[in-house]
Every structure is written in C-alpha cells, then in structure tokens.
C-alpha cells in the first residue's frame, strides 16, 4: 500500500554537486564577507565621514544622518556633554558649535554638544526617542526643547514612526534581530541605505538632507520662510492626548532614573507670543512650571531671548534663521556656563 503512496523516482540528481549555479554560493559568501569587512572597518574610522551616512531603516533620512553623525562625533571626540532633542525649533535653532564656543568663552573649558532635533518630532515621539538616545549615548546633560505646539496631536504625524522604529525600540530595551542589526552592524545599515538609494526620488531627498545637516546635527535655515498667519485661531492649550501625555511621562521618568534633564521653552517670535499669549503660550508655561517644578526638573524660559533677537533673525514665527541662530546659541552656551559649570560635566 505504501508503495502506491510513497516513492522517490522523481529526483535523479547525479552530478548535481558540480552544477555551476551552486558555486555562486561561494561567490556570494565572498562578496558578503568583503562587504561586511569593508563597511564595518571604514565606518569605524575617520574615513567614515567620507561615506554617506547609512540607514537605520526608520524611513527618515534626517534620523539616519543624525544617528550616524552622533556615533562618529562620539567616536572622534569622546563622551557627550550635552544632547539637544526636540522638534524643528530645536533642529534649526541651537548650533552646537556656537554653544561650545560661548561656553568655553565663559568657563575656559571645552564642551561637547550635539543637536538631535528632528523636524516635526512632537512630544509623543520625542519622549521615547529621548529615552532611547540617553540609553545609547549616555550624555551628561539631556536638553529637551519643547513648546506649546508639542501638545497638539495634529502636528508631526509624518515623523511619529521614528519613535517606533527598530533602532529606537532596541534602545528602549525591546530587542529584535533587526533592532540589534541596525544598532550594531554598519554592513546591514549600508545594505538598507542601498535599498533606499535605488529609488531616485529618495536619492534627491537624501542628498538634500545630507547637504543641510552639519556634523554636529544642526540644520540651519537661511533667509525667510512663509509668513505665518497670526490672526488664525489657535487651539486652547490642554494636555488631552494620551500618547502625548505618555511621551511627557517618559521625560519625567528619565529624571526619576537620575538623568540630568533640562527642559528649554523653545523660543517663538514676540509677535507669535503676543498673538497667542492668553489661550496658548501662558497656560502652557504655567502648566510646565507646575509639573516640572514638582519633579525638580529645570525649565528655562526664553521670553527675554526672543525679544533680544531682531525681527530679521526670524525665519518665520517659530524658527530662527542665520541671524537668530548665533544669538540663541550664544545665550544657551552662556546659560549653561552659569548653571552647569565645568565640574558638572567632569
């Protein structure tokens, strides 16, 4: 009976071991080993700056570039003193180079800072990302720039996935093989980079981001953007979205875990402040001062800084340009020198 069902007459593979197609396995292994050796070696040396930043597969070139630049920065200059996180107001605002110069001018001691601001990275995403960055890079001071806009769930939709990426999740302790690979293997990250690179539209976007971001993560804005309509209604400030609350709670948790956390109110133009003072900015500042005060977290206001920036220094109502950046960055460097002396960073 079983002979009617079972039989092995179909496969007649004499001499199959000599098939040339099977030898490609050796060639493939040889190519893979060469790829791994070259990428892992080059990315870990000074030559790494020559190569385009590889991808961590989070569907954001800005994120890829900043992760790689931060790794290179720490590799070249040692442990990080301060890491700035936040949305575009952070991304385009404080220039680490100017902050370091201002700090050194005040204290005579060098400082090592990096700007990890990301466009449209709202609090619900920056909360987990800040935790992941702290776990991975252990900066001595974590500076988070936030504004009332961070509590509006309608902002930043396109960049939320960065917080749920394999890279971030791995550094939050939720490991996966891919998470490990994007954190540990440059060869894998360069393979991901090539996959993105195959799309010519991706190439153009990548080239633009690569050109704009400085080696210390800062993305300058030049000139003037669109005029912001200051007469349009703005929502009343309130913390109503649970994912935003969760992001905020993660920051509070960092402080409880002993991380040196500094929250900076991202400066807005005086016009913007006046237009939305009563229903948005003031209630937000009140709320922050109350909550952060009870958790003993430093919260720096920037009203005076905003008024000290000339009107030509604003790219738009919420972002500074090449004129405003030095003012803002110098102020931040001086404030750091005053509140965080060199002993703090030792």
């Amino acid at each position, binding site marked *: 009976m079983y002979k009617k069902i079972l039989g092995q*007459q179909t496969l007649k593979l004499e001499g199959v071991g000599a098939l040339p197609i099977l*030898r490609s396995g050796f060639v493939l292994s040889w190519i893979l080993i060469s790829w791994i050796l070259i990428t892992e070696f080059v990315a870990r040396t000074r030559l790494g700056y020559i190569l385009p930043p590889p991808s961590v597969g989070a*569907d954001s070139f800005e994120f890829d570039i900043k992760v790689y630049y931060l790794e290179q920065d720490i590799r070249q200059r040692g442990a990080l003193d301060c890491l700035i996180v936040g949305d575009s107001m952070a991304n385009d605002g404080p220039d680490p180079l100017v902050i370091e110069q201002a700090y050194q001018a005040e204290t005579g001691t060098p400082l090592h800072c990096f700007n990890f601001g990301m466009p449209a990275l709202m609090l619900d995403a920056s909360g987990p990302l800040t935790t992941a960055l702290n776990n991975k890079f252990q900066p001595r001071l974590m500076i988070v720039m936030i504004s009332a806009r961070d509590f509006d769930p309608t902002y930043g939709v396109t960049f939320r996935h960065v917080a749920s990426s394999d890279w971030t999740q791995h550094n939050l302790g939720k490991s996966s093989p891919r998470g490990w690979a994007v954190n540990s293997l440059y060869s894998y990250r360069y393979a991901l980079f*090539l*996959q*993105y690179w195959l799309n010519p539209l991706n190439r153009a976007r990548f080239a633009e981001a690569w050109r704009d971001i400085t080696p210390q993560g800062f993305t300058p804005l030049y000139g003037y953007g669109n005029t912001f309509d200051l007469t349009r209604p703005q929502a009343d400030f309130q913390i109503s979205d649970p994912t935003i609350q969760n992001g905020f709670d993660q920051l509070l948790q960092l402080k409880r875990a002993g991380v040196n956390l500094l929250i900076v109110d991202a400066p807005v133009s005086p016009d913007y402040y006046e237009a939305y003072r009563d229903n948005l900015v003031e209630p937000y500042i009140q709320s922050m001062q109350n909550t952060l005060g009870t958790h003993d977290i430093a919260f720096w206001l920037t009203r005076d800084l905003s008024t000290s920036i000339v009107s030509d220094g604003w790219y738009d109502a919420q972002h500074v340009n090449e004129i405003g950046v030095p003012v803002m960055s110098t102020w931040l460097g001086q404030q750091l020198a005053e509140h965080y002396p060199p002993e703090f960073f030792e």
Partner: protein
Amino acid sequence: MKPIEIVSTDFFILTLITLGIYYLLAPRAQTFWLLAVSCFFYATWSWFYPAILLVFTFLNFILARQLEKTRSRPLFLSGIVINAASLLSLKLLTSPYQATLLEQINATALTRILLPIGFSFYVLQLISYLTDVYRGQIQAEQDFVHFALYTSYFPKLLAGPIERAKNFLPQLKRERVVDRNMLEEGLYLILLGLLRKIVIADQLSRLRPADIFTAPENYTTLDRVVWLFLFAFILYNDFAGYTSLVRGISCLMGIQLSPNFRQPFLAGSFSDFWTRWHITLSEWLRDYIFYPSRRWLMSFRWTGWMALLLPPLLTMLVSGFWHGASLALLFWGFLHGLYLIMEQLLQRFKLLPKSGFNAHFYSALVFLLITLAWIPFNTPSVRSAGRYLIGLLPPYSASFNILILPDVLLLVFFSLWLDWQEGHHQDLSFPRQWSVAAQSWGVAIAILLLFFFTSTGNDLSRFVYQFF
C-alpha cells in the same frame, strides 16, 4: 485567509512544502497532491473559485468523453457555447458597463459578480480541449484527476501559460523526472523571472507617475512619449517574468510548461510579433479563431479580399475582448487587426522588406506602431486614449524628471540585454550556456540585486496580466 500572490513569501513557502512532499510520493500520489495544493492555492483567493473551476472541469470532462463516443456536432457546439458564453457573460458583467447591463436585464441586485481570477485562461484551455477531442486530434482523458490537474495546476492557474492538453496530459502519465538539466533549467528560469519582475517591471512601475494614463493632460509631451515606451517594457517584463517564474517552478516538478515570450521587441513584422508575444494565447487564437474563420470563408469560396480582411480582424477583436470587455480594449484589438491586414496587403503586393536597411526600418516601425497601440490597452476608455494620443501631437512640451533618467535607461538596457542573451544563445534559461565562472558570478549578482530590490518598503505589485 489572504490570497497567495505568485511573488510572495507565502508562495515561496507553499512551493517549498509542495516540492518537499512531492519528491517523496509515488507518481499517482503526486498527481493527487498537486491537485490538492492547486485547490488550496486557488481557495486562498476565494473558496468560490475552486468550486467554479471544478464544476467547469467536470462538465467538460463528461462532454469530451461523450464527444469522443458520438462525434456529435450539436454536443460539441453546445460545449463550446457553454464555455464561451460563460466567459463572455462574466467578462461583460464585470466590465466598466456592469451597472448599465444589470439595469438592462433587471438584475441590479447582482452588483457583486466576480470574474474568478484565471477564469479567462482555463476556459480557453477547456475550449481547445473540447475542440481537439472533437477533431480527433487527441483522445478524451479518462482519468478525472489528471484532467482536473490539467485545468487547475497551480503554477499556471492565475495567468497561464495557456497549455494544450496534448502537451500537458502526457507529462502526467509518464514518470516525472527532475534530473540535473531540469533542475538547472528550472532554477535559471526562476531567477530570470524574478529579475524581470522585481528588478525591471516593479522598479519601472514605481518610477512611473501613477496617473499618467488616466490624467495625461497633467504631463508634458515628452513624459507621455517616454512612459508610453516604458509601459511596453513594464508589461513585457512583468508578464515574461511571471511566465519564466512559473515555468521554472514547474520544471522542479518535472513538468514542462510552454514558453510565452521570445524577444518580442525584436520582431521583424506584426505577424512575427504575435509569434513572440504571449505565444500560447496567440497560438490559441490562431488555431481556434483565425484558421477556422479562414476555412469557413473558404468554404464559401471567399478566398479573395474577405479571406484577407476578416480573419485577422476577427482574431484580434476576440483578443481585445478576451483582455477585457471595454471599448478601449476592442479598439486595441481593432488596431492590431488593422496592422495585420496592412501587412498582408504589403506582402500580397511584394512590398514587405525582407533584409537590409528597409527591413530594419520596418522592424522599428512595427515596434513604434505596437507601442502606440498600448495607449488604448492601458487607458480606461477610448476617450482617454484619444486624449493621450492628442497629447503626443504639437504643440510639444519637453520637461522630464531628469532624476529618474539613469535608472530608466539602465533598466531598459538590462531588459534588452536579457532579450539579446536569450536570442544569442537560443535558450530562455541562457546562463547555463555561460562559462562556469560567469555563471557563478552572474547568479551571485542576480541574488544580490533581488535582495536590494525586494526591500521591505517596496510594494511587490501584482502581475498586470492576472486580472484579465
């Protein structure tokens, strides 16, 4: 359960499991196993599909046995009418004119009529089977399991090749052998199929503006010209890639399926094109529409102009309708019918160039006219085809996204290079003609290309042809 697409991890796993068990079974059990897998594969699209397939299979199985005994012409015609009418009505009821048609027959409640995927392909197989049995060219199959596998064999179920019973059924009856050559051929066909589908067709599709054929007025003349030519490459590599892939998989089971493409863009004439493009459909149309219609006309002693004009026109109109019941596709068929008639006229007056520069020029003209005919093939209506065509006329606008130009040129070059290799070696799995070192490097590079082009973010789009 989600439908299993041909280029998907699910299909890869299904194939591995199928092969693993297949190699352990005796021939008869192998046939049962393949039938079971085919039904399962089809049922992942809808449980309803295998049910319809089995009904049609059983009906035709019985009909053919009766035909063999009786040679009854009414029985034969009723069999053809049942199959053809089913195809015709389902095509019409799932066409863009569905709502109007349902209103006409007072059946507006029937809004969810579905054309089972692959139906157009297996109905043609059933018609050819009945005809061949009736003509006495083959014997009616006595084994229902073999016959059911002929109609439902999963590698060819969704989009062909349209196999003839006389090619397929004898392979089920003899011992199926996968030797070194068959294995090599199968693996190369799979690899080349994946390259055509994933690296060329899918990548070109990704670069193509999504609405260029539906809203051509939003694009420049140059955009329209370039994407019209590129559409030909997308369609060709998509379908040729699919055919190569399923032929390769079938080789691993010891069953040879017919080739469907043979460097169609190198065709020297319109009639030559149809011996190179969707070959199994073209041969079906030739044997069951073109020749019979010509013979029928000749039976009335109409050997002149009527015999010259009607058969090609009728054949290509049927081809257009088979691709979809829309005026645009009928127009596509009409254009091709017209091309064939013009060519026959040139031949009759001995004006068709056979060699030299004129032959090359004619070959380029054939490619150009066939490319123009893709406009109604790919636009939703005759009106939008007209809009596209008018957009190719002056005044010209010439901006084009230069960013994608290197990619597009490389992909087109790669497609033509694959064709040249096929032609040069006279072998669709041509890498086996290469030196050992070239094969080793070629396969390794092909695997790397496939790895990079099948990134997680990429959508492995469905085959264009399987929805006809």
